[in-house]
């Protein structure tokens, strides 16, 4: 009986294949098999989950002898190279590691990604070292690499360090893509670079600037932006191996770039973006109330913005802090601002830099050097004359043209450490990276005092 059924089945199939065609039957079988596996892969994708809420503070943040004054210093005093676009990450042992790009000028072939470590207990930075350069990247990704750019670091849920950095193969920053390396030993040694594919048009024009964040399942949210035909912000979701799982759009057109995502709790986040269109001069904002499943339409905030990067963190009590050039043109002033209502109204907590007085008159080179030396000493009173001289010469080299000399304080990057202190890095006259520490006690006091301060 079974044998008869089997032979009838085979006979029926043979007739069908002869009528349908062997070729078509083969393709049909392939279609069914391939798509069965494809659907399995699709259903295996991690579902949407909530944000990882900000980490709680460790006990030392509340100790009576915690520092109460803002401290400033330079990350590295080796004057000379052009330095820009720093980022910062807290290591497992509480130290901080900074990354930036450094070379003869922005976009030069000799630009490398460099790094240094800050020990909060000794309150000093260690020596800087090269993390990766253009040729190493080119050899590892098996693609021509013309130049390197912005690095952004992440400590993954399992404690590894992952660094994302911009690489360009074709043209200017519009031709960027993202490359990534990881370290299992706090940044002493790194894996070979690997390219992330994030755009369908020749994988062009994806850059990083904003700090990564995490979802509750350990996946990573990486704010990215495009600067090709459009200027807009997005968020990538990556798994533990750095594989892209999803992408969400935050803005469109040419309106904005360089998003930062301030996570308030599992469901709520505020995004601030640098404005990308001439004439708008305001930070662009969008927010979510369902862990990023949906975002509000991007709109202008009250914060001024001269087409420059913004940095920020969310504090546990829903207070937002941001560091930015809160002016409409140029980048010669930088402030720390705060919002206690989710980003609608903002107050200034501290003016970090302000050299706008020099706008109306042209500084001579001598006056410029004198001013830079004074600013350097104000940043770190321990500097020797020879060090301030070298710093001033470096700033003059990078910031002076034949017509005039300029000041620039830009590309801030901010994190909150587990001790509660807020650490800020920013480019200081394109020659040094300045580090500002806002202790927990100072923040608490200033936030209380600022409640009556004037709104922006």
């Amino acid at each position: 009986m079974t044998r008869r059924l089997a032979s009838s089945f085979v006979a029926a199939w043979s007739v069908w294949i002869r009528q349908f065609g062997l070729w078509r039957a083969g393709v049909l079988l392939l279609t069914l098999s391939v798509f069965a596996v494809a659907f399995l892969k699709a259903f295996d994708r991690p579902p949407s989950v909530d944000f990882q809420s900000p980490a709680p503070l460790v006990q030392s943040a509340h100790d009576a002898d915690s520092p109460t004054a803002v401290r400033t210093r330079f990350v590295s005093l080796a004057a000379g190279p052009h330095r820009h676009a720093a980022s910062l990450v807290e290591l497992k042992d509480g130290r901080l590691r900074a990354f930036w790009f450094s070379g003869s000028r922005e976009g030069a072939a000799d630009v490398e990604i460099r790094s240094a470590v800050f020990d909060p207990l000794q309150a000093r930075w260690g020596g800087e070292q090269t993390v990766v350069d253009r040729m190493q990247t080119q050899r590892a990704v098996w693609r021509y690499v013309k130049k390197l750019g912005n690095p952004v670091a992440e400590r993954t849920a399992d404690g590894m360090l992952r660094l994302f950095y911009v690489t360009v193969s074709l043209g200017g920053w519009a031709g960027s893509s993202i490359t990534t390396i990881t370290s299992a030993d706090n940044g002493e040694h790194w894996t070979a670079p690997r390219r992330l594919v994030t755009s369908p048009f020749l994988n062009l024009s994806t850059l990083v600037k904003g700090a990564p964040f995490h979802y509750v399942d350990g996946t990573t949210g990486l704010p990215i932006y495009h600067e090709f035909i459009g200027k807009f912000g997005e968020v990538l979701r990556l798994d533990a191996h750095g594989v892209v799982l999803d992408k969400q759009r935050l803005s469109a057109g040419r309106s904005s770039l360089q998003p930062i995502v301030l996570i308030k709790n599992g469901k709520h986040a505020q995004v601030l973006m640098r404005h990308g269109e001439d004439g708008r001069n305001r930070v662009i904002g969008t927010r979510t109330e369902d862990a990023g499943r949906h975002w509000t339409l991007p709109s202008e905030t009250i914060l001024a913005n001269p087409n420059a990067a913004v940095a920020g963190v969310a504090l546990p009590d829903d207070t937002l802090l941001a560091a930015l050039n809160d002016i409409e043109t140029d980048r010669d002033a930088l402030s720390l601002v705060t919002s206690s209502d989710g980003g609608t109204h903002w107050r200034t907590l501290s003016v970090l830099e302000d050299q706008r007085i020099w706008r109306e008159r042209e500084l001579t080179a001598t006056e410029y050097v004198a001013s830079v030396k004074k600013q350097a000493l104000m940043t770190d009173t321990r500097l020797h004359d020879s060090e301030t001289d070298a710093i001033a010469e470096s700033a003059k080299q990078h910031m002076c043209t034949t017509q005039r000399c300029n000041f620039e304080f830009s590309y801030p990057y901010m994190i909150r450490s587990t001790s509660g202190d807020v650490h800020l890095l920013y480019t200081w006259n394109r020659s040094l990276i300045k580090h500002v520490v806002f202790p927990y006690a100072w923040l608490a006091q200033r936030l209380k005092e600022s409640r009556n301060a004037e709104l922006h």
Partner: protein
Amino acid sequence: MPSFTDLTGLFGIAWGIAALCLLCGQSALSPWSPARRLSLLGLVCTLLLAPMNGVPIAVYVRGMVGDLSITTLLALAYATGRSLGYFPPLDTQRRKVSLQLLAVIACVFYPLALGMTLYDPYRWGYGEPWFLLLLFCLALICVLRWPLVALSINLAVLAWVVGWYESSNLWDYLLDPMLSIYALFALVRWSKASAR
């Protein structure tokens, strides 16, 4: 040593350039036997992958254009096989409809994917089940009407499933700008020829 995805990417670029060279030089190479032309194809491929100053030429091209989609590679393979006399000519009407469909998809897809609006169709490629369902239905229709296109879709989806390239997005296996530009160019040439 390159990783698997680098090998596939580099080989795809080398193969794509070699096939294009062969197709562009068809008339000049027509006196050559198919075996000789196939050898030339292999030689060009090898030259593109051989290190020159430590870096193969394919590395420079890959840096600029990325990895070619599976659809492009298959189209080039068929065109090459056709020029060598191994495959029959494609039905003109079917070829035209396929290119029209490709051109329409590209004209809608790329502007949206590059930020024209808040909606991003590139996101479907990360494993949206209904996108797969759409492709499945399209593949089934093509099995009946034009199995070659169904095969192309299947191989692109299979390549995505196994992680053939670095990209985890199915769109990068289905479509690329080179194929889209070719489709638009071919259609413009056709309509000019029809107008004459």
